């Protein structure tokens, strides 16, 4: 179904940056990676022309910079004989934040279609277009993604924090989030928090 949708998008919106992302799991729920500039147009096309009128879920995902191993086969002439050499190349994939949308069609009773949008990086360029004007159900969920991941949604009617309080500064669901240990609570004897508190107190004592 996703390939049919992709074809329709390419024919309906030529030039839109939409590509298929493969999902190796047995459920085969492949997703469409949409470029940030075309996201609103693609979303409106999906809602109006293909009747995907129900945006069920909006999630944020954090992909920190990682190394990906790829095994390639290349041909090389050694001593006049052409040989195939297999080697594994490791390349760095820069980090990004992702917003994943799951869409269903109530009118045609089918789905899910997964849309993904990726930010450029994890610290400076973290804005994505908001799809709340297209599907109102994305309203609170995009607020939550902003709160917990830090993605700014341009065009959102009311982008504030949802679960954390308004003056909070960090983004808790990121992979490099350091949980605080400066709160008053008595952990049980084997708690990791107690170790960190002791370590912090030791360094503070030295510094003081």
């Amino acid at each position, binding site marked *: 179904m996703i390939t049919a949708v992709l074809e329709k998008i390419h024919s309906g919106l030529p030039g839109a940056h939409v590509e298929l992302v493969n999902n190796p799991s047995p*459920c085969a729920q492949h997703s469409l990676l949409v470029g940030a500039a075309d996201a609103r147009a693609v979303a409106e096309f999906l809602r109006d022309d293909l009747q995907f009128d129900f945006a069920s879920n909006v999630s944020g995902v954090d992909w920190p910079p990682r190394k990906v191993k790829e095994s390639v086969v290349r041909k090389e002439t050694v001593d006049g004989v052409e040989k195939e050499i297999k080697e594994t190349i490791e390349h760095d994939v820069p980090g990004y934040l992702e917003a994943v949308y799951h869409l269903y069609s109530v009118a045609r009773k089918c789905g899910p279609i997964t849309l993904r949008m990726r930010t450029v990086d994890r610290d400076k360029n973290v804005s994505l277009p908001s799809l709340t004007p297209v599907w*109102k*159900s994305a309203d*609170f969920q995009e607020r939550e993604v902003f709160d917990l991941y830090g993605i700014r949604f341009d065009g959102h009617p009311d982008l504030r924090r949802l679960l*954390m309080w308004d003056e909070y500064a960090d983004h808790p*669901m990121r992979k490099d*989030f350091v949980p605080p240990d400066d709160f008053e609570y008595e952990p049980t004897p084997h708690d990791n928090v107690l170790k960190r508190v002791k370590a912090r107190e030791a360094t503070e004592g030295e510094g003081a």
Partner: protein
Amino acid sequence: MSTLAINSTSSGDARTLDLSLGPQHPSTHGVFRMNVTLEGETVVKLKPVFGYLHRNHEKIAEGNSWLAAMPYTDRLDYICPITNNWAYAVAVEKLAGIEVAERAEYIRVIVGELTRLQNHAAFLGFVLGDMGAWGSALMYAFREREKILDLFESLTGARMMCNYMRFGGCRCDLPPGWIEGATKVVDKFPAFLDEMEALLTGNEILLARLQGVAPLSAARAINGGMSGPVLRASGVDYDIRKVDGYGIYNRFKFRIPRGEVGDCYDRFMLRVIESRESLQILKQAIAGLPGGPIINPKAKLRGFRPPVGEAYGRIESPKGELGFYVISDGTDKPYRFRIRPPSLINLTLLEELCLGTKIADVMIILGTVDIVLGEVDR
């Protein structure tokens, strides 16, 4: 506790009241806050405030194994723990391609529909309490609910927080005499529904307070992401048990009730009619229960490592569409564990529904949307 601030607009005459229907409130179904701006008694603006029960379930799940996330799902929508377990099990079974044992599928349907019955019974009681019937109607509903919770205790060991589903089946088999107990509950439940309907239908107070309050059109409901009884009350024929056909629901004959106007009365009575349909499913499931193993023999308990990939699995929980979006990176801990909470998303249109209604109606509207804060804040 509610705090208020009186302010005057620039026009001088009109004065609005900012009221914080604060986190401690008997009718907000948990620690839920609404910043309401009133003109007289009419609501002009409503901004819900969340986060008082935020327990970062999603982050905890990333640090524990796949199985260890199961008891935490009990605590999401704590009125219906077993359906939460089921949704998570469905998502992971989709991710890893695990088949579920057939006897386990039937038992899942039985305990799932029992959960729906007791959730709707609690809903009836709570909405009547919100409307001013205080505790009496609530206690009638809880009397029935306790019978179902006793069944859960004898099956799983705990009244709520059952931790019953596993990937590929259920945790333990039915003890002797359980099916007879369940059949007795199913036989007596229609009498309770009849009694509640005698109490409610035709009751002038109820009709005056529920009918015509906050109608919701079908198109608006779909765009706003409503799901479950709220969506069906607006006239949309969409029940995930029929659409997705997860588990073995396509083997049972049951009808999907639909509302006409989508006002509070439709949302309220729809759940009563849905309970009757659940009883039909229960009768069929109990009659068709096969023998066999309770869990897929190839399912692993410890050290479960699903393949790399992602999956979105959803079920029709009593509150709406409960979905789990799980990403696996091949290790024994989830990479991303996202809960699609029906209660939070059903609140998206709360402001729209409440604009122009009276302050007393806000509680009724919130009550008929049927939220549980454990799910809203996770």
